[in-house]
């Protein structure tokens, strides 16, 4: 007599259902290649533009406030406020100003991405060994040279870690852009949700989610390559 007989069939059933679901997910994906391609492209555009600009902006703020405790704390506080506003609200409050579509989403994502990079820029610059700065100044490097040749390179690993966090954050939250007609992979999730429990609704939700994960993974890989290429062996 097979004692575990009651378990095995349900296990098999589950595996079978999973395989069937993956099959139909795959079919769903193959059925709309252009839609998928466009959504990925829109999503990627958000991530690249937002993370790029927000990083540049935040590093600049971190650099400009490096000798001014008050300005630094103030900008960190403002950055924190952005991150605490519910994302649904942040995406919608700019609609009256810039309309629907790309711009309200861009602004919201930009504001979200500030804090991780700013926080890490500040930390990275703060943790540079003061004796290294003393030596640099003592040798006759100007303030700009100290910044570009010593402070930023030494803070770079920490800054880059912040950029990575901002990227992951943006990949996830960019899915909300769909609610303000901003496109992206969120489109699949939204349309799936709206059609539940109709056929292909779950497939749509899962496709959006998995493509977000895949995108995050690929971008992260890219950032790792960037890290290896831009961080000196001496501080790795």
């Amino acid at each position, binding site marked *: 007599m097979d004692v575990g007989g009651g378990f095995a069939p349900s296990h098999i059933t589950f595996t079978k259902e999973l395989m069937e679901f993956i099959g139909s997910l795959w079919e769903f994906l193959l059925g709309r290649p252009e839609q998928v391609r466009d959504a990925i492209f829109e999503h990627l555009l958000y991530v690249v533009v937002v993370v790029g600009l927000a990083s540049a902006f935040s590093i600049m703020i971190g650099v400009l406030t490096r000798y001014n405790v008050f300005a630094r704390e103030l900008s960190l506080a403002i950055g924190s406020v952005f991150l605490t506003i519910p994302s649904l609200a942040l995406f919608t409050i700019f609609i009256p100003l810039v309309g629907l579509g790309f711009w309200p989403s861009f602004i919201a994502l930009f504001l979200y991405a500030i804090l991780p990079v700013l926080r890490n820029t500040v930390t990275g610059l703060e943790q540079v*060994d003061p*004796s*290294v*700065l*003393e*030596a*640099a*100044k*003592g*040798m*006759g*490097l*100007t303030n700009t*040279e100290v910044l570009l*040749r*010593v402070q930023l*390179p*030494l803070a770079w690993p920490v800054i880059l870690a912040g950029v990575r966090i901002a990227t992951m954050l943006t990949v996830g939250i960019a899915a909300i852009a769909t609610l303000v007609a901003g496109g992206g992979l969120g489109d699949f999730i939204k349309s799936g949700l709206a059609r539940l429990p109709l056929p292909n609704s779950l497939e749509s939700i899962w496709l959006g989610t998995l493509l977000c994960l895949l995108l995050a993974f690929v971008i992260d890989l890219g950032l790792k390559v960037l890290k290896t290429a831009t*961080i*000196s*062996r*001496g*501080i790795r």
Partner: protein
Amino acid sequence: MTDDVLIRLEDVTKQYGGTEEPAVNSLTLEVIRGEVLVLVGPSGCGKSTTLRLINRLIEPSSGKLFLDGEDVTSINASMLRRKIGYVIQQVGLFPHRTIAENIATVPKLLGWDKKKIDERVDELLEVVSMDPKTYRERYPKELSGGQAQRVGVARALAADPDVLLMDEPFGAIDPITRDRLQNEFLRLQQDLKKTIVFVTHDIDEAIKMGNRIAILREGSEIAQLDTPEAILADPADEFVENFLGSGAILKSLTLAKIKDLELHQVPVLKAPVMRDKALETLQESEDSTAILLDKDDKPLRWLDQSALNRTSQPIEKSGRPITVDLQPEDTLQDALTVMLQSSTGLAAVTDRKGTYLGCATIESLANLIVSGQGSKN
């Protein structure tokens, strides 16, 4: 005074906001070209502040700064600093740059071409006794504390500045390495003849390193400024006396060099040597110990009568090995240490290449101290 003054601080005061007493109070100080001037004093006396006033890492509240006769109080500070080497206790090497890149910092700022920089880096690594091939491409984290400070010194010397400012450069290094670095540095300075301002809190280091010593008290006020010999012989006041501490004679041992000693010549045996010949040589001399040299005249062993009579061993393995030899630039304190450790009471002296010159003995040491004392009184 016909001395060539290279650095002159004129009535310089540094007052920090929120404090009553200035860190440096109306200090006038002259540094003569080619000398090592040591600023020494208790912590908080303002010696580091004074040093940093010279390269204007600290800007004076009032007063003037002259370099080579030129008023540099308000010229571009970065340009001034490129002409002044700066070495600090924590070294402050750039961790993200290789040793070669670290050393090349100032030459690069000055726009030297790459080939000249490369040659200079190799030259400097050799000057500080580090093999260029081994160390050029390494990173600071791969160096020991002593090696890091050698690179620190090389980096400060890179653009061949006339002036070197050193803020407790050997303060964070273990005593044995420190001693070696000090000796090497003194040897280096003989060739380089830089004008050096050296800050330390260690009076022994001050006596050893300085051509002149400025003993500072609170507010960077000069308690006494003179040669180490003069300060040891005649402290200006109680503060200086207390600061010097006890054992002035022992301290004066760090002042004189082995080259000041009259070396004693013991019988010399050159390997390979016959036992009979060796015994004969030793018996003809008044000394009880002979020295065995190898074919390049490098000291090998001390041999005495009983060692030579012990026929069970070849001559090259008899007697006692000579493990440490002294060089003319080492101090008498080093000599005393070696003698006390040696069973014979002798210390072999060689030149820098290791060629035997003669022996330092307790008698020769005592003679020098007595005559030195005599000349001062």
